[in-house]
């Protein structure tokens, strides 16, 4: 019972209700029958020709598929663009097949079943535009490493990939690359990225960063195709290498300048001594001229003293030039700060400058050359005292600070002295002030400081404002510290007795 009703329904109603446009066309292109869906899509059809209904034409379409089916009896599928009942363009996929074949072989009707694909087509177009116009290279690669699809940017740069392998396209190679990111995606099914150097279709080197990601999978879950999106970084790389070159040239120039500045610093130190020698000679001559024994004695004394100074100076300078190897052992960073503070605390007091010490007590021992770091800190404190002296401020303060941040041991020496302007700051490690008097030095203190810190893998930086003061900072990343020569626990503190062994003061 039910099956008969169903049969009737299929026979009588399906044609009308099926959500596909169905039209029956005779050899004169008249629409002789159509369903509701067809009428809803294309509008009035009775007594009209198919080309009128579908496309608003007054004569048959130039490439009429129905005519072909009428003549050869073959079914066809075709994508068409027409006009819907409201006059809007519509894309539709149409299946054509002959309805009845009589004994004479003629075909009285062709059935046309069409589906609206406007939305799909739009999406497809959008996808194509996106794919083609994306300003990076996109290639879809199969398991044999063939480029099965590529966007315009890729084709413009690497050429037409049809049927060719990715390694041919990207690198002009005959076999797979060793570090193939696509292969890694096929094996791991995870996204991969790599920096690559390839050759474009003209053989020009192209730098790109490739991001390979699984695209489609086989029914058993294997990665079937990989999408490679690559960004051209040729220009960036070029700029990087230019920048590197400039940087290198700058370093070389700075090195030369540093040599020049060092020589000028050296000359500065020598000037004082030469003045002393000249003075000694002058006093000696005056003594002789006047037969003044006291003057003669004084003159000789001056000559003696300055000859001793110049030999000390030369030794110190040679020490710097030759470079004493740092003697690294496990050392408590705070112990060095404590020593230097003790050394300069009194000196500061005499000159009405407070020397304060602020330590983070949690800093663990580290492989350091305690003498070297001591010399660095002493240099900085000595300079800070000088900077304070030059200042007119009432409360003059030098602070020695220790801290550790993100695995980096930091020593800071701050002062509220005269500060420095940018120009002086730049040159500060080459010669700067040669100080004498109570903080006697030869003017190479900061050069030595930088050298020692660099030997520890660290860096020296300065914050300074003219008139406000300066902060010198020694930053020693633990990961870059040298290996200790001896690791015995006995050497843990490793700092000498307070005040002893210091060449200054």
């Amino acid at each position, binding site marked *: 019972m039910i099956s008969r009703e169903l049969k009737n329904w299929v026979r009588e109603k399906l044609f009308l209700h099926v959500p596909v446009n169905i039209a029956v066309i005779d050899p004169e292109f008249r629409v002789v029958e159509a369903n509701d869906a067809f009428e809803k899509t294309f509008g009035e059809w009775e007594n009209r020709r198919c080309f009128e209904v579908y496309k608003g034409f007054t004569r048959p379409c130039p490439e009429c598929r129905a005519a072909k089916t009428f003549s050869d009896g073959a079914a066809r599928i075709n994508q068409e663009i027409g006009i819907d009942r409201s006059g809007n363009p519509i894309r539709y996929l149409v299946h054509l097949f002959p309805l009845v074949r009589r004994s004479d072989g003629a075909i009285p009707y062709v059935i046309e079943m069409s589906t609206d694909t406007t939305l799909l087509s739009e999406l497809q177009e959008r996808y194509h535009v996106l794919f083609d116009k994306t300003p990076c290279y996109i290639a879809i690669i199969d398991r044999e490493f063939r480029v099965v699809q590529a966007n315009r940017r890729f084709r413009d740069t690497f050429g037409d990939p049809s049927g060719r392998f990715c390694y041919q396209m990207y690198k002009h190679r005959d076999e797979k690359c060793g570090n193939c990111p696509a292969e890694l995606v096929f094996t791991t099914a995870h996204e991969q990225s790599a920096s690559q150097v390839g050759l474009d279709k003209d053989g020009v080197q192209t730098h790109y960063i490739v991001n390979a990601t699984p695209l489609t999978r086989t029914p058993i879950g294997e990665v079937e195709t990989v999408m490679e999106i690559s960004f051209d970084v040729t220009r960036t790389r070029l700029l990087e290498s230019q920048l590197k070159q400039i940087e290198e040239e700058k370093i070389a120039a700075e090195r030369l300048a540093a040599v020049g500045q060092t020589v000028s610093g050296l000359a*500065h130190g020598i*000037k004082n001594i*030469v003045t002393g020698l*000249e003075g000694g000679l*002058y006093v000696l001559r005056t003594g002789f001229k006047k037969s003044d024994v006291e003057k003669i004695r004084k003159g000789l004394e*001056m000559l003696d003293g300055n000859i001793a100074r110049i030999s000390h100076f030369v030794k110190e300078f040679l020490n710097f030039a030759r470079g004493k190897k740092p003697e690294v052992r496990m050392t408590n960073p705070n112990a060095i700060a404590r020593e230097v503070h003790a050394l300069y605390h009194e000196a500061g007091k005499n000159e009405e400058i407070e020397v304060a010490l602020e330590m983070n007590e949690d800093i663990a021992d580290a492989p350091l050359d305690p003498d070297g770091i001591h010399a660095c800190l002493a240099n900085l404190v000595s300079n800070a005292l000088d900077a304070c002296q*030059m200042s007119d401020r009432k409360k003059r303060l030098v602070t020695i600070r220790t801290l550790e941040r993100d695995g980096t041991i930091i020593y800071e020496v701050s002062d509220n002295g*005269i500060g420095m302007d940018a120009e002086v700051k730049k040159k500060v490690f080459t010669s700067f002030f040669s100080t004498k*008097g109570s903080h006697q030095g030869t003017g190479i203190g900061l050069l030595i400081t930088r050298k020692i810190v660099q030997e520890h893998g660290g860096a020296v930086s300065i914050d300074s404002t003219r008139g406000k003061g300066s902060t010198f900072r020694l930053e020693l990343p633990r990961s870059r510290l040298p290996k200790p020569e001896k690791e015995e626990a006995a050497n843990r503190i490793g700092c000498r007795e307070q005040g002893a062994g210091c060449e200054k003061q």
Partner: protein
Amino acid sequence: MTLEKGEKAFSKGRVLVVDDEPDIVEYLTTLLQENGYETEHAGDADEGMLKTRGFSPHLICMDIMMPKKTGLAMLRTLRRDPGLRQIPVMLVTAFGKTSDFSFVQLKELVAGEGMTPPDACMEKPIDRNLFIETVGRLIGKGAEARR
């Protein structure tokens, strides 16, 4: 050159030398005395100020980098004192045209504070003739100013 009343007849003028290096003090004072100047000396800026008040020099030759207070600090004190600001000051220092903290920067520093700059800067090692000539000129200038 006009000397003030009561000065010793043989003295061309009084010069105070302030330097922490005894060798420089000995050298400059000998040189000045040999050229007819009366000298006094001080080893630091505080002593220098004391001697300035006691000795009433016609010229002060001073170093910059000295312990305790610098020559710059002493220059400041002198320039702020209405009774002393007329005394010519000559800086005698190893700073030179080529060193980083040059006379130029020093002058900028001084000018930045609105202070009258030093009257002369002499680079060590000194040119004796130039030194004596400058001393003579500055003492003359000082005398003009005092008149």
